[in-house]
């Protein structure tokens, strides 16, 4: 075997030990801790009683929690689908710009993504709440415009329309608000992988398809879509995972009735102080994420 230099081994150890230490102690260990605690019980004063049991995991099947879990999955799925419908064409658009523009466009896509999440979600709060901008427009200028039109052109439809625009839309504190907030937050995570897949596409394949099918829709469905599927799957995973575990968005935009798993975890840790149960929920969430991540990496290999 090779005479490995002992110098080299020391240097390697020197380079990785700080990070290795940090990640093991402050990441890996906590991870194991969460798993271990999830089998414990809540102590009287909020500590942990180390009594092994599966109670925490069984509590999942309580209809209360099942409903929340179901809602979270629904919201995450809806977010993913909308991101796909909005993001894929957007990625296609960028990929079809002249090469000089593409990097600049991607840059502008990413900049909002890396700013403060809280602030961006707050921006939607401003827009969506009852006294927010959208409703202000709705009950204000729009309502007035319709009123003006009603005077000029007498038609029966104005009545109900005016009625609708006189009260603010219930946009805030709904599942819909959460979905909008999440789509806004994670759209770039869908666009980037789709863009990468579309850009890698060999355009001559598309031309051959158009030649064969003489129909843009068919050539899209039969050729482009399947070939960019890896990007679609990657993007979907990248959007679904954080949406499922969202905390800030449902907290700010969702109101008391639209809570998601993230909020439950928060309340278990901050108010109820039921660490074992909170850990169990956390762990299930992480398990789902792990599955998603594995799918992402399998797709990434192609």
């Amino acid at each position, binding site marked *: *075997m*090779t*005479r490995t*230099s002992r*110098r080299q081994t020391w240097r390697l150890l020197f380079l990785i030990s700080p990070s290795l230490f940090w990640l093991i102690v402050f990441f890996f260990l906590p991870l194991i801790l969460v798993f271990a605690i999830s089998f414990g019980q809540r102590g009287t004063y909020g500590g942990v009683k180390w009594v092994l049991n599966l109670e925490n995991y069984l509590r999942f099947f309580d209809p209360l929690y099942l409903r929340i879990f179901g809602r979270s999955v629904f919201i995450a799925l809806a977010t993913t689908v909308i991101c796909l419908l909005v993001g894929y064409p957007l990625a296609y658009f960028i990929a079809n710009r002249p090469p000089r523009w593409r990097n600049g466009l991607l840059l502008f896509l990413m900049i909002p993504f890396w700013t403060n999440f809280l602030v961006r979600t707050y921006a939607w709060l401003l827009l969506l709440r009852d006294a927010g901008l959208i409703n202000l427009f709705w009950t204000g200028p729009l309502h007035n415009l319709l009123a003006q039109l009603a005077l000029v052109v007498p038609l029966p439809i104005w009545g109900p329309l005016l009625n609708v625009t006189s009260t603010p839309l219930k946009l805030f504190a709904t599942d819909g608000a959460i979905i909008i907030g999440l789509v806004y937050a994670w759209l770039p995570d869908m666009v980037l992988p789709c863009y990468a897949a579309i850009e890698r596409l060999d355009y001559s394949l598309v031309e051959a398809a158009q030649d064969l099918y003489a129909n843009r829709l068919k050539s899209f469905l039969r050729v482009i879509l399947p070939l960019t599927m890896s990007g679609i799957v990657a993007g979907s995973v990248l959007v679904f995972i954080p949406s499922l575990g969202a905390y800030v968005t449902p907290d700010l935009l969702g109101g008391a009735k639209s809570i998601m798993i993230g909020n439950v975890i928060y309340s278990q840790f901050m108010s109820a102080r039921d660490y074992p149960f909170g850990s169990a929920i956390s762990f299930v969430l992480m398990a789902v994420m792990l599955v998603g991540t594995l799918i992402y990496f399998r797709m990434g290999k192609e």
Partner: protein
Amino acid sequence: MAEYAVELREVSKHFGPVVAVDTVSLSIGDGEFFSLLGPSGCGKTTTLRLIAGFELPTQGDVYIDGQLQGETPPYRRPVNTVFQNYALFPHMTVFQNVAFGLEMQKVPKEEIRQRVLAALEMVQLPGMENRKPDQLSGGQQQRIALARALVNRPKVLLLDEPLGALDLKLRKAMQLELKALQHRVGITFIYVTHDQEEALTMSERIAVMHKGRVLQMGPPAEIYEQPADRFVADFIGETNFLEGRVSEVRAGEVTVLVDGALEVPVPATANVVGGQQTTLAIRPEKISLHASPHDLPALPGRIEEVIYIGTDTRYLVRLTEQTMVMVREQNLGAGDMVRFHTGQPVYVSWVFGCARLLTE
């Protein structure tokens, strides 16, 4: 003063299951221009790196100037390397690049300045000190890389296919320049290349490598005129191979029956016995063509193809159903150069000794 500048004794290098260098032994003399020649993957670059210290041998020993280099790192070896892609430091000026080695050896500033400017003069690029590498052409970069190495006055200069990225004319000019430079400076040059013409042009001695082993080592003429085996004969220049069976063995001469029909006498350069299968090698330019048989031993054949390429004309001559040879005739004289035409019967002959026995 050691006997050899560089010595490799039974050196092997394994990368996992892959044997890159297989029990290689070399002795390179002081001031010699020595080339390692072979196709890609033959182990020549790895051998060079073993001398430089970028790789450590799995087995065997490397000696530089008589000193055993066990695990000595590159920065403690008295050798310098010219890399294939030049590896000039992009963030430094030409001056800083060339001065780098001297700086690391803590040479005083004044001396550094003198030596760097002298080195630039030597490679004929004076006045370039303040340029950055990306402002230079390929040929200029190559010469700066050379200056950067030579300024340190190493015992041995290692060159890893330094001319590979240059266009043909420039490459040929640089070959001659490098050879002249080596004479002037008097340093041992160890040169790695896959271009056999380059090796033949520049070297005092060549080691032909294949699959990690040295197949033959010697001066260019020896390598060319007396190839040791089939690979060397095929790799260097062009060769015709004739398959046959030994029919007669005498002192100093062996007769081989080629393809059951042609009797070819060859010098007894290898130990063969009667009846043994063997291969003969003969170079295209050694064969002469005649319209009618002379007194010289001549073999009959028929022209199958004529190829005119300016400097010479090539003929593909079929001798038997299985055997065909290529013949090169230099286009001497004026007028119509093509002496024979397709389909014409001819006789081929050569000087005794041009056809050689090959060992596998």
